[in-house]
């Protein structure tokens, strides 16, 4: 099969770029740990009272690290608001008690899917004070656009 010289140059450039992109993504993921949220823990979505999600809320782990266990539901989150001081790192562990939702903080890299039966996890450090909006960006029913919570980051 004949390949024209220009076509060879084009394909080497194109495929070379793709390999470069993949290496960048791979190094960021596997060397620096910047992985997409892919937590493997499961729970019984219809029986959350008997799991670690029986009392959702914020828990301080050490000086500036918190764990927030949050239950997503149609159409809101439990708890509906949490408060942390500026500079805190929060580990969000979120699950759903009904359908598929998301846990998304617009303007940050926090954006993960919440599927019933699974716990998803993401970590974020809040370096600016303010009232952060959390929304569900995955369709979950007629009240989907009302689903929100807030994170108060105090100075």
């Amino acid at each position, binding site marked *: *099969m004949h*390949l*024209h010289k*220009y*076509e060879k140059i*084009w*394909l080497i450039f*194109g*495929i070379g770029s*793709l390999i470069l*992109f*993949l290496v960048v993504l791979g190094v*960021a*993921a*596997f060397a620096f740990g910047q*992985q*997409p*949220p*892919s*937590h*493997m*823990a*499961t729970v*019984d*979505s*219809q*029986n959350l009272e008997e799991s670690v999600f029986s009392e959702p809320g914020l828990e301080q782990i050490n000086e500036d690290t918190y764990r927030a266990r949050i239950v997503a539901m*149609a159409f809101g989150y439990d708890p509906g608001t949490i408060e942390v001081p500026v500079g805190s790192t929060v580990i969000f562990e979120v699950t759903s008690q*009904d*359908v*598929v939702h*998301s846990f*998304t903080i*617009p*303007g940050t*890299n926090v*954006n*993960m*899917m*919440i*599927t*019933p*039966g*699974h*716990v*998803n*996890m993401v970590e974020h450090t809040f370096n600016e004070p303010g009232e952060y*909006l959390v*929304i569900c*960006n*995955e*369709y*979950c*029913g*007629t009240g*989907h*656009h*009302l689903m*929100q919570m*807030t994170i108060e980051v105090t100075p």
Partner: protein
Amino acid sequence: MRQSNLALKDEALFTDVQVDPKDGKLAFYHVVVAFFAFLLGILGGVLQALERAGIIGLPSWLGYYQILTAHGVLLALVFTTFIIYGFFFAGMSKTHGPFSNGLRKLGWIGFITTLIGTVMAATMILTNEASVLYTFYAPLQAHYIFYIGLTLFIVGTWIAGAALLAHYFKWKKQHPGEPTPLFGFMTTATLILWIVAGLGVAATVLGQMLPWALGMTDGINVVLSRTLFWYFGHPLVYFWIMPAYMVWYLVIPKVIGGRLFSSSLARLAFVLFLLFSIPVGFHHQLMEAGITEFWKYIQTILTFVVVVPSLLTAFSIFATFEQTGREQGGKGLFGWLKKLPWGDVRFFAPFMGMLIFIPAGTGGLINASFQLNALIHNTMWVVGHFHITVGTTVVLTFFGMAFWLIPVITGRKLTKSMNRSGMVTTWLWTIGMMFMSGAMHIMGLYGAPRRTAYTTYQDHPQAMSWFEGIFASHLTVAIGGVILTIAGILMFYNFVYLAWFAPKGETEFPLTAEPDDYRSSPAILENWKLWIAIAIVLIIFAYTIPIYDMIVNAPPGSPTFNNLIR
């Protein structure tokens, strides 16, 4: 590349045989269903854009998510599938000879089955029993008739696909040792892709959703159903793009007065699509729990591989343009551009589609970029992305195709005024899309969610900013949506005129002459058994372990939630 690119002589491959009228009728019915679905679909689109911008409120009997479901199903599934099959039946009749009565009957059975499925699903959507969006969203649950309708839709396309495939393989058997016509080769690659991909959606609908909707099982494995859906959902986009590429490879060279310069590269591109467009569904699930990073990354690599045939296509098409333009006397670095038929809608509409595919494809690479996906996942960016890929590249190519396909199969003429009307349609569509998709992309970067009705989240400043941007605002989306709707209605008028009112006469089915290397294409490219086997091996590699994991380590199944959608 010393061959002449002009198609002056050597028309032996495709003689003046037109589409057999009986086959033309089958193709015509497909196109008619496609355009009626198109009209309903775009009306759903404009209502959403206006509602979401807060310009209008919807009446109590019509839900935002209901019209969102209708818009997605009617345009992304019904319009595309019917127009693609219409194109296939007409093109296969032209290039491989008339269908036998038996195969044509099979084609009709497929058409009717698909249509019944469409009507069943559409009725459930219109009665608000199925506002689950076209991605299904288990454990939200639609009426079981919706799932049966979708099953019939898929099965109908398989039956019609079987008629087309049988027609191709019959030709191949009757012409041993000869390369098969490019139209048939590409149709076959596309249909095999569609059938293999459809197995995933059939498995989740028949194996999971239907028994669950009928109360035969009490729980559904949500992540498994999503995985099976996206196993189908990504090749679906190649099912749209491959017929558009067929127009670019096989029709456009003739329209500009040239010929395709390489048959082998065209075949190679289609084989690569068949191999690499299926084992990539996880790039729609990068933000999900229950799938390990490792397997997500493997499928990210495969997703990047499927860019290669698009690179091949871009080179082939623009090389054909340049050669033809130069041979027609175009001088200098860009002089050949002036020689292209800019006033011919059959060229211009697909050309705008190609041009827009450059930013559209780039956006696709961003979406697939693993952890980078967190920035844009389920934001308006994604909506902007598929409105310029399928909604512009594919749709404008099909618009351009309609201007010769419809008169060919109805025995009418493409008039000068219709051509002008097509040019206006193309410009309006492109301009409308620049506003709408441009604003969607930028708003997505600021976090505006997709699939969400009008809301200000209790006037939170972050959400208010999505209405207050100078360009990046829901209002810009609405303006673009209105322009697109005007273009869409004009296109529907073009369709009606070409189908029933244009003057009777002959219209050319434009098809490229035999490329220079047509007879010397490597025979291995025609070895379908080999390509199907490799495709299956890749699918098994990419999916077996993660799916095994999903089943073995599954959480308790989810019950039905059908109260949430009404």
